[in-house]
């Protein structure tokens, strides 16, 4: 094992952290993109501490609805993890990948999440929420709501494009095990970010 690792290091097949370069780059991307959200959330926390009349979330949102959105996203993460596992197993057994049957429900979950978010936006806009004002309290509430959920929603949309591309490429037999794993890492990251937004913006 050590011999293989050393050889792979010498040939440049692996980086010093002993993972394929694609995976390392993907993780670097996730860390930097995650920092963008960290900055966003820290800024939101600043606004929260500063505000005197931050609206009570339970008075603005239907938390059951947000919980349903969370359920959809977590479920799609589980199907994506199954897709990655299936791709790994089929590569190991030398058979055609059956990951497609897990990637498609994942994409469906992403689509459902986006639809639910669009409905939530439309509902709140209908009630008077804007980027600069809202009927419930601190003006920055609307700005942080639209920017945080919008930025996350854009990531879900990007993930959906990646999933659909992966699905087409899987059907054509182009995408290999690693391609599914990269799509999976991105999709789980989107789920991971939602955990923070759900807790910090909707609950705390």
């Amino acid at each position, binding site marked *: 094992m050590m011999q293989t690792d050393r050889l792979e290091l010498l040939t440049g097949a692996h980086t010093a*952290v002993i993972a394929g370069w694609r995976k390392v780059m993907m993780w670097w991307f996730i860390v930097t993109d995650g920092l963008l959200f960290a900055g966003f959330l820290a800024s939101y926390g600043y606004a929260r501490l500063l505000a005197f009349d931050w609206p009570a979330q339970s008075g603005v949102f239907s*938390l059951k609805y947000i919980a349903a959105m*969370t359920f959809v996203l977590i479920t799609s*993460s589980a199907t994506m993890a199954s897709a990655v*596992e299936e791709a790994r197993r089929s590569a190991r057994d030398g058979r055609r990948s059956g990951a497609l049957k897990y990637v498609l429900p994942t994409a469906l979950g992403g689509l459902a999440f986006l639809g639910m978010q669009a409905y939530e936006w439309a509902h709140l806009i209908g009630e008077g929420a804007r980027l600069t004002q809202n009927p419930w309290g601190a003006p920055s509430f609307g700005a942080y709501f639209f920017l945080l959920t919008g930025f996350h929603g854009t990531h879900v949309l990007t993930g959906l494009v990646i999933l659909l591309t992966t699905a087409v490429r899987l059907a054509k037999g182009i995408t290999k095990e690693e391609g599914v794993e990269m799509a999976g890492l991105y999709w789980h990251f989107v789920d991971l970010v939602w*955990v923070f937004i759900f*807790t910090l913006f909707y*609950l*705390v």
Partner: protein
Amino acid sequence: MKTYWITWSVLLVFTAVMLWADSASLPRQAFVVFMLIAMLTKATIIAANFMHLKAERLPLVLTVVIGLLGMGAVLWLLIAPDATRIHEIVTKYGPR
């Protein structure tokens, strides 16, 4: 595959408990601490099991954990006291 669905159910249980805590009238400080712990636990479960971080080598794990959580914490600790101070000043002397 089974592991992922166990992970899925654990995440759902955590979400349900967080929603319960939101409806229960806990003291504010205890509530925030509880939520932060639950949030970080959920994030760890996703990263470890779904993203397979538990199977990666330590340098990669540390890059991600320190890179994200460490930097996030530093960022927060740098600006949070300022917000609290401004809040206290406004409370004491009024908005103008």
